[in-house]
């Protein structure tokens, strides 16, 4: 029966999901669950698997969920419809704000409001970093890795691209020779 779900319907349902998700991946889960299981598109018990895989693949988690769920419904076409649907509302909103904001950026009230907002944005980047560090930095060498990449990027102007590529290579090699091969 999944073959009968029309693409425009997939697009619209995911557009609705995208419009009501503020804050990204995890905020999306309850809305996805409500919309998809109500329609009988994807059973509740499959959702944890979809979320786990979307989380471990690179990229934006919400996009990965849409690709995966759309694929379940109509294959590659379904994933394209779902992804375009889920990003369209925020795309239009951001575009409208971007056009509007360039005209108002120099307004003294806007400037003063953003003067207050900017330091708070940095706090909002630091908090998830601290929370992540407490979850994943369990051994001393985890801290060395975290501190090393911070110093390399922030102080030595190394591109994060090189950090990610080299840690991927090292992690892969170490895991392979320590756990998979012996």
């Amino acid at each position, binding site marked *: 029966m999944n073959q009968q779900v029309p693409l425009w319907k997939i697009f619209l349902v995911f557009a609705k999901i995208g419009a009501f998700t503020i804050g990204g991946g995890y905020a999306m889960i309850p809305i996805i669950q409500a919309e998809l299981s109500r329609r009988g598109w994807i059973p509740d018990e499959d959702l944890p698997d979809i979320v786990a895989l979307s989380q471990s693949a*690179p990229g934006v988690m919400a996009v990965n969920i849409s690709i995966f769920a759309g694929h379940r419904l109509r294959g590659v076409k379904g994933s394209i419809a779902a992804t375009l649907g889920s990003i369209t*509302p925020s795309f239009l909103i951001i575009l409208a704000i971007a056009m509007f*904001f360039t005209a108002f950026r120099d307004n003294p009230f806007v400037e003063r409001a953003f003067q207050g907002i900017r*330091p708070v*944005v940095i706090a909002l980047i630091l908090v998830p970093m601290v929370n*992540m560090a407490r979850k994943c930095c369990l051994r001393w060498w985890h801290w060395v890795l975290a501190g090393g990449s911070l110093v390399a990027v922030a102080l030595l102007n190394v*591109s994060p691209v090189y950090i990610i590529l080299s*840690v*991927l290579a090292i*992690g892969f090699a170490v895991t392979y020779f320590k756990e998979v091969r012996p």
Partner: protein
Amino acid sequence: MSIAALLLQLAWTFLVIGALTFGGGYAMLSLIQNEVVVHHAWLSESAFTDIVAISQMTPGPIGINSATYVGYDVLYGATGSHLAGVFGSMTATLALMLPSFVIMLLVVRFYTRFRTSRLYGGTMAWLKPAVVGLIGAAAVILMVKVHWDGWVPEVSLVRDNFPDWKSWGLLAAAFAASKWGRVNPILLILLAAAAGLILY
């Protein structure tokens, strides 16, 4: 630089970011910021900080939102044309998602093998701490600028983001409210806007 060349550069930049983001929106922000502010110098630190604030308040994932916004700003800034800006935001957003598409379609195919792979789990255990460092670096770069004069580092504050002691107070208050008070980020940004209007 011609518009076509700039669009191509934008597409490549966001393609790489999309392929290398492990660990969610803030990890992606650190990559976007480094490419856009540090490497290409398309936007200033404060312009980027404003974009992050707006991306956080609007629906949709923060990574996609900031890519859309950055794409618009870069092209609009270079040409002064809104239409070019629209093309810029489409280019950045689609390029960011393209690697996810390819990778997820492969993942779907090798579903169970991928999930139980020890190799994948082990590699990720290495990557996660590094990503924590990258997110920390994104915050630091929005606070201080480091310029190397040979072997001598010159450290200066990013004055647009931190003009005075009041801004450091706002940072500390927001950190505490978010970390221990669990105040919603959107509410915090609205409060910060009100504080800005009163303090400045």
